[in-house]
């Protein structure tokens, strides 16, 4: 029979593949193996990219480890599953066929986790089971007969608690020694069906030179694809579709025959597998004479998904997050500010007066410092996002928000990419890969940057400071929250519009696991914050540094020695560009100086703040003034103040909607594999930003505000 395999220890294992269900602790095990920094999350499918690392064995041997995306099945419905399947079957040209598969399974959720094991067995690869989270089995008042399980499955089973590094050495030992597996397909479908499958297996072996194991696994998938066989597969993601017309025709013939007999290959296989799993569990899992400990998850869920307390908790967490951003973050922000001011003073003292000193002080230190100052706020934001994800609360937000998402035609799963986009649209857009429907995924990607990301924080913060300098932290957090809500409403409206027009599709099916709550690993949270701040600082040191220098040059040349500061700025290249833009942006309440800020932040939003500090440091002689005071002192030529409350609001709204981020454009280009979508996204968001700011300013004026 196909899918029966026995093997002796391999000579040498070079490549190990880690696979397993989402939430099985696969990523934790990967970290323990490779010591490579990586994120551990609790949302099903947080590992969306193929990650690789190296594992050092005792005798200095190096083994490559590939971390596959977490998945429930080897079916081919999402790009993730397709990728995993191709890697396991050795179909990717840049990845060699695995020498060993380690399947991580959650011992506390054995039945469903064994489903994937059963599918992996079909592929006939040497395999080890890492029976993870053994501590949860204990808590459930049960025990697993590991020796028995290993015997029934026909492969080594190693009990592990990856979060406490238990069982890691045993796994390494096995990898070093090589493994012996000997398993048989324990399940059978109806004889008629087995026969048809066998026929297709023979075809695949004959035409495609597949080995029988791979052919059996493939046959089941092919028979279940139905009408989609011909067109759908070619388009999806990184996969290539391999079969010749002739073979596809023959598959259709078999499918027709099955349909006539009223047989469904796929569900029959699923049910047969689960029947087998039931018998395995019956043999290997026993109840201990102990009461299971109280289920903490159940008690937490009773509150956080409660009709009233659920919302209180959700909005409470959000409010707390923004409040912390405004209160706790101010202390380190003051220190950073003082540091950069000191640095500027020092350079002023050391360097002789001249253009070099101006470049250093007004260009580089003011520019980079103006952005780095927001590091503490970004750290707090990522601390929260990371915590919500790792504990498992993020999935609950998808659960309670799904109804709302379905109103705009989206899936609860779209909520997590959108929520992650509050931190940064890039991880958000990348996590949209877990959405199976290509159209829904695209809609999610298109609206994700409307969620206010951390790069908007600097702009909001400074505008709010100008808008209401005397306000309390609570009031400021309120305005900030309003901006975030504006973005959310915009995202919902646009998603609804896209689903109605450009990207119509059926309502997607919503099935989502609600894993138990787990203590976050503080180590992982800290690493996540560190990684993010490193990225932010690198951005400050590269893109923003370069932009600061370019902008300084544009603002300082051509030089007009005799003119007073502000006139010289207006005559510069940047000033000319801003002046040219002024007629377009005047209806929004902006002058040519804000125009320079808009142009400057074209590639990165936070550059607005540094550009404005350069604009006003160059234009005004009073360097000791903070940017806020400079803004408040700014006037139109006729003496009206420039930054009226209405202009501040209009500017903030502009930044809510505009897509000013090269990194996002690049990531959308990569994820959609086209340049039309990022271009479309940029244009629609620019139009939206312009219209929304116009509406705010003009309506505000009509209503008598200034």
């Amino acid at each position: 029979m196909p899918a029966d395999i026995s093997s002796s220890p391999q000579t040498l294992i070079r490549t190990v593949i880690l696979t397993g269900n989402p939430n099985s602790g696969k990523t934790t095990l990967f970290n323990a193996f490779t010591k490579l920094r990586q994120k551990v999350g609790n949302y099903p499918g947080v590992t969306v990219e193929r990650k690789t690392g190296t594992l050092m064995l005792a005798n200095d041997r190096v083994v490559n480890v590939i971390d596959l995306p977490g998945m429930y099945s080897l079916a081919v419905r999402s790009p993730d599953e397709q990728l995993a399947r191709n890697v396991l079957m050795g179909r990717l040209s840049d990845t060699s066929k695995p020498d060993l598969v380690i399947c991580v399974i959650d011992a506390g959720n054995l039945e469903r986790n064994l489903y994937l094991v059963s599918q992996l067995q079909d592929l006939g690869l040497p395999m080890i089971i890492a029976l993870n989270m053994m501590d949860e089995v204990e808590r459930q008042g049960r025990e697993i007969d590991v020796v028995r399980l290993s015997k029934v499955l026909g492969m080594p089973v190693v009990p592990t608690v990856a979060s406490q590094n238990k069982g890691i050495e045993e796994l390494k030992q096995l990898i070093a020694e090589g493994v012996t597996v000997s398993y048989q397909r324990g399940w059978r479908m109806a004889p008629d069906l087995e026969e048809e499958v066998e026929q297709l297996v023979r075809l695949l072996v004959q035409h495609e030179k597949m080995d029988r194991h791979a052919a059996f696994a493939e046959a089941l998938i092919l028979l279940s694809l139905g009408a989609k066989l011909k067109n759908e597969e070619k388009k999806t993601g990184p996969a290539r579709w391999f079969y010749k017309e002739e073979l596809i025709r023959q598959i259709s013939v078999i499918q027709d025959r099955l349909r006539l007999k009223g047989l469904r290959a796929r569900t029959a296989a699923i049910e047969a597998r689960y029947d087998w799993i039931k018998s395995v569990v019956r043999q290997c899992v026993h109840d201990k004479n102990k009461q299971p400990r109280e289920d903490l998850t159940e008690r937490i869920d009773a509150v956080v998904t409660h009709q009233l307390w659920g919302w209180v908790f959700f909005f409470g967490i959000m409010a707390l997050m923004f409040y912390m951003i405004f209160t706790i973050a101010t202390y380190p922000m003051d220190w950073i500010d003082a540091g950069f001011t000191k640095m500027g003073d020092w350079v002023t003292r050391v360097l002789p007066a001249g253009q070099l000193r101006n470049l250093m002080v007004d260009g580089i230190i003011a520019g980079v410092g103006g952005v780095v100052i927001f590091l503490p706020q970004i750290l707090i934001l990522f601390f929260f996002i990371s915590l919500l994800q790792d504990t498992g609360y993020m999935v609950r937000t998808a659960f309670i928000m799904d109804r709302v998402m379905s109103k705009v035609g989206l899936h609860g799963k779209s909520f997590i990419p959108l929520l992650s986009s509050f931190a940064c649209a890039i991880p958000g857009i990348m996590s949209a890969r877990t959405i199976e429907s290509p159209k829904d995924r695209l809609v999610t990607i298109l609206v994700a940057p409307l969620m206010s990301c951390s790069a908007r924080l600097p702009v909001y913060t400074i505008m709010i400071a100008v808008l209401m300098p005397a306000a309390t932290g609570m009031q400021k957090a309120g305005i900030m929250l309003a901006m975030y809500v504006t973005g959310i409403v915009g995202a919902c409206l646009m998603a609804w519009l896209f689903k109605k027009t450009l990207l119509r599709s059926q309502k997607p099916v919503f099935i989502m696991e609600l894993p138990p709550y787990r203590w976050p690993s503080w180590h992982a949270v800290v690493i996540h914050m560190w990684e993010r701040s490193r990225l932010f600082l690198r951005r400050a040191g590269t893109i923003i540094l370069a932009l600061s220098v370019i902008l300084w040059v544009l603002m300082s040349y051509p030089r007009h020695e005799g003119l007073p500061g502000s006139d010289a700025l207006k005559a510069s290249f940047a000033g000319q560009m801003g002046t040219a833009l002024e007629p377009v942006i005047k209806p929004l309440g902006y002058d040519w100086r804000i125009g320079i800020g808009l142009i400057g932040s074209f590639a990165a939003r936070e550059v607005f703040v540094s550009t404005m500090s350069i604009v006003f440091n160059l234009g005004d002689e009073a360097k000791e003034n903070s940017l806020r005071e400079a803004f408040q002192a700014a006037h139109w030529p006729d003496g009206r103040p420039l930054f009226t409350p209405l202009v501040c609001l209009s500017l903030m709204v502009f930044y809510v909607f505009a897509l000013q981020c090269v990194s996002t454009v690049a990531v959308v280009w990569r994820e959609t594999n086209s340049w039309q979508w990022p271009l479309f996204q940029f244009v629609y968001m620019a139009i939206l930003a312009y219209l929304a700011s116009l509406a705010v300013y003009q309506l505000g004026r009509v209503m008598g505000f200034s």
Partner: protein
Amino acid sequence: MPENYKTVSLSKMSIGQKGRIRDFVVESDDCERIEEMGVTPGEHVEVVRYAPLGDPIEIKIRGYHLSLRKEEAELIQVEVIP
């Protein structure tokens, strides 16, 4: 299991009610997805809760918690265990 147990769709069950999955009303790709998650005929199921806005529904099956929309739960016929 006796014949006279009432069969209803999963979406009609109330919180705390238990039952045994009988079959799917129609067969579709979506059913395959649901079955792959362990929701197969013959299996015991318990309704844990409904989301605050009434949809989706959270069920307990094979010892773990799963949420699905009422729309999908409607496809699943369950023999209610009193």
